[in-house]
């Protein structure tokens, strides 16, 4: 099925990415004085975008590829959109979660009386515009274009508080992301163009786009550049921007730095691995397993760092760094099962991690607490929030019946198929580390002692506009754990 030849020209694609763009404009036009109308614009844009993307599902599942050409730059380089099964994994998850995040951020921003909410909402929508553009890119240039749009549009969100900490975090953010893109991605893209005469992605995951006689050394270098160039994937050593970005308001950390932005990174990385280089080339040049070990370092190291963090958001950030590399690990092992595991984790991690960040934000709005040690016994006061946290933690750990288990299952099968005991051990060690840093949070909240002198007086659950999205996201984590087929059918359409 991978070589699907049924290409449908569809303007739906361009409408889908223009909806958030126009949403952002509408948000700017309504402004601070008409806050309700402004938030309505956000929510309408989110719902509309998800509906359009959902309407593509039948065509894609039928084996078609949606396609839409926008601009021709030079021969072989164009701005062209494509929706195939691979795009849908990311697009569906991110666009659905935008709806939840739109409601959630309403509660969060108003609950904390944040400033510049118009700018915040507009940039939020613009970031989604970039993320959807990445999801629907048909070639490396389009991908790069939207990738950079995401970098620029998220800067104001990270710097949102406009204090020294905000500016420092935002500077680190933009320096890491643009430097890696310019240093690695740009030359890699130009050289790929010089070598192949095109930047279009292949239509299947095996062949790649390089002519057979291409210099192997050069291809290897380009491959390394592509892995390092997409620094949004959080692979060490270029991961520092992510913890730095945690100065942003929590809805940003939740949707962008657990779902949209970081998934743009791993999505781009895996898209390029599979559709520019291709499984055959990666096998021939033996690129897969070294990559797997390379990202294994990130998986373990980030988990160890997460253990040492007592700030809840910082711990979640390092957990994200670790979990993102699961996705690349899965694809890099190059067996069908492992690729399945890697790709499904794009969706699984999205739903579970956004739940965790939502919880962290809800706790902050309700109690103004950021540190895990201050949350002893808080579970009895905020049972829904911490129950959701517990569910999502299980998903991160990879315990049944939550989403993360599906990932772990496929990754373990994949590592055995690839005969890589080392990688198997990495996965097991990572599971234990995840238990190590997630279990105490939940345990402490429900069974721990309250901090001395802390009565939690007047503290109750966060507003409903926050709790409901939390419960929905947590429920979906369970549903896709028990019934993974809906998302799996896209993944299986990719691997064939």
């Amino acid at each position, binding site marked *: 099925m991978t070589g699907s030849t049924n290409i449908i020209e569809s303007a739906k694609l361009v409408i889908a990415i223009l909806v958030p763009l126009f949403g952002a404009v509408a948000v700017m036009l309504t402004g601070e004085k008409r806050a309700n109308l402004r938030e309505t614009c956000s929510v309408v844009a989110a719902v509309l975008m998800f509906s359009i993307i959902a309407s593509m599902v039948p065509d894609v599942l039928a084996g078609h590829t949606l396609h839409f050409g926008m601009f021709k730059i030079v021969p072989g380089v164009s701005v062209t959109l494509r929706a195939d099964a691979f795009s849908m994994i990311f697009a569906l998850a991110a666009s659905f979660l935008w709806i939840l995040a739109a409601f959630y951020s309403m509660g969060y921003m108003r609950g904390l009386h944040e400033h510049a909410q118009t700018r915040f909402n507009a940039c939020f929508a613009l970031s989604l515009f970039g993320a959807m553009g990445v999801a629907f890119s048909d070639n490396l240039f389009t991908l*790069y274009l939207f990738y950079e749009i995401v970098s620029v549009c998220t800067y104001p969100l990270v710097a949102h508080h406009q204090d020294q900490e905000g500016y420092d975090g935002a500077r680190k953010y933009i320096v890491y992301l643009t430097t890696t893109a310019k240093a690695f991605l740009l030359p890699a893209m*130009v050289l790929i163009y010089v070598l192949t005469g095109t930047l279009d992605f292949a239509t299947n995951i095996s062949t790649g786009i390089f002519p057979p006689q291409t210099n192997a050394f050069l291809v290897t270098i380009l491959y390394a550049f592509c892995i390092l160039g997409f620094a949004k994937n959080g692979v060490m050593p270029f991961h520092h921007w992510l913890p730095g970005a945690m100065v942003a308001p929590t809805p940003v950390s939740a949707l962008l730095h657990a779902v949209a932005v970081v998934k743009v990174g791993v999505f781009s990385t895996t898209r390029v691995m599979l559709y520019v280089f291709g499984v055959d080339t990666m096998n021939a040049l033996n690129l897969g397993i070294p990559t797997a070990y390379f990202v294994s370092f990130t998986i373990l190291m980030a988990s160890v760092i997460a253990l040492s963090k007592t700030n809840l958001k910082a711990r979640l950030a390092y957990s994200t760094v670790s979990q993102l590399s699961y996705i690349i690990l899965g694809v890099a092992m190059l067996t069908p099962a492992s690729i399945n595991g890697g790709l499904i984790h794009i969706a699984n991690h999205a739903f579970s991690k956004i739940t965790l960040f939502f919880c962290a934000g809800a706790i902050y709005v309700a109690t103004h607490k950021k540190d895990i040690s201050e949350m002893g016994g808080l579970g009895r006061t905020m049972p829904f929030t911490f129950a959701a946290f517990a569910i999502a933690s299980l998903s991160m750990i990879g315990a049944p019946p939550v989403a993360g288990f599906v990932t772990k299952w496929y990754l373990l099968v994949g590592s055995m198929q690839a005969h890589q005991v080392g990688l198997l051990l990495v996965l097991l060690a990572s599971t234990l580390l995840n238990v190590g840093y997630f279990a105490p949070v939940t345990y402490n909240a429900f069974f721990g002692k309250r901090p001395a002198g802390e009565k939690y007086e007047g503290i109750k659950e966060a507003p409903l506009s926050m709790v409901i999205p939390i419960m929905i996201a947590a429920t979906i984590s369970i549903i896709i754990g028990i019934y993974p087929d809906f998302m799996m059918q896209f993944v299986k359409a990719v691997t064939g």
Partner: protein
Amino acid sequence: MDFLVMNEGFPLLSALIFLPLFGALVTMFLPSEQAARLWSLLITSITAILSIPLYTGFNVATAQYQFGEHHAWIPLWNINYTLGVDGISLLLILLTTFIMPFCVLASWRYIATRVKSFMVCMMVMECAMIGVFAALDFVLFYILWEAMLIPMYLIIGIWGGPRKVYASIKFFIYTLAGSVMLLVAIIALYLASAPHTFSIPALMGGHYSSTFQILVFLAFFLAFAIKVPMFPFHTWLPAAHVEAPTAGSVILASVLLKMGTYGFLRFCLPITPLATVTLTPYILWLSVVGILYGGFTALAQKDMKKLIAYSSVGHMGFVTLGIFALNSAGIEGSLLQMINHGVTTGALFLCVGMIYERNHSRELANATGIGKQMPIFVTFLAFFSLSSLAFPGTNSFVGEFLILAGAFKRNLIITACAVPGAILAAAYMLRMLQKVIWGGIDNPKQTLLDLNVREIVTLAPFLLFVFWIGLGPEPFLSVMHSSVAHLLEQVGTVQASAVAGLLP
């Protein structure tokens, strides 16, 4: 005259050259300053509109010079008045004619004294610039080339900032030093040709000895490298830019710098191909040094005009890198990048001028955190800055992409060394943008008014071209193909040795 497609009917090129000159003469007799402003705007606008038929009537299928005009001038020395445009000069002429009305608009309030004289200088400048790009006779070219010096000298020297005398004299001396070598090269070529001729196309493909070619090339090179400016001949540029009034900076950045790279393409490559191929590696390295030096220096600037001036050194380094890649991707990318730099850097100087008109400072520190007060302005500034750092989807990206593709084909290592220049461009531009829009936690307290309609009208067309070239460059590239292919034939392409084995 087989290289020239003669113009039938209305002498378009002559009209473009002499209309501004006529406008300048009339300006001297105008009653008021406001009349001089309006009149200059009218003349430059008519010139711009008049130049559109150059594009619409241009035949993309031929490498010949079109809209040709030929009249004997000084028959004794075989000096002629020969004009013509090809795919290399066409866009540069259009850039010139289209930039000028905006320069007039940008001087509307900025120039408060001796307005008439200023407008005269501007229009004489326009006449000379169009003439330089259209001239096909070396003497005509040289006269117009020198003619550009005087109005620019006056623009900086009279209407410039505090160190205007220093800057204008430095500008004059540098450029004149280059011009003298240019004159020597022209005379040498005249004497070496048989029969003696000053016709530029006739001198191309003359088979001169390699020593002669190298000497002529070096003479050309000095003249043009100063004009580009290439490292290490660039030091006049920041001084001139900083002191010049906004319109002067825009003309300098958008058009005058292109004279140098145009010279490389028009003279060095086709007239001295052997020398070009021999000296290419050195020039490529010099370009890379310029790219990196310009980038690092721009990063350290506190003065916004200086920052953009040094960024020009870096950007023009990319242009020369592409030209001396000696393949079609590189040269077409360079030509496009010349236009892009004209559009983007011109617009950036306009932006800085707009801040200067409000707070009378070019210091970055005095312009921090104005995003909230001037949202329209910073939106423009953001797009132009992104364009300057070659953000995908904007004009400079297409140029830089083609240049890098061409340069990678020529030499992998040298080009790899130029890549950090792209990072530096992002660094200094984003640094400026961050400071202007956001600043820090202790921004200066000031209230600045956002752009008025005249200023928006001045900037908007630039933005249009930023995206037009960025997303649909075909109309701009298509006019180049034939001429660039012909040029490469003339160079005789002694290609593809350095990277054989690595790249196809």
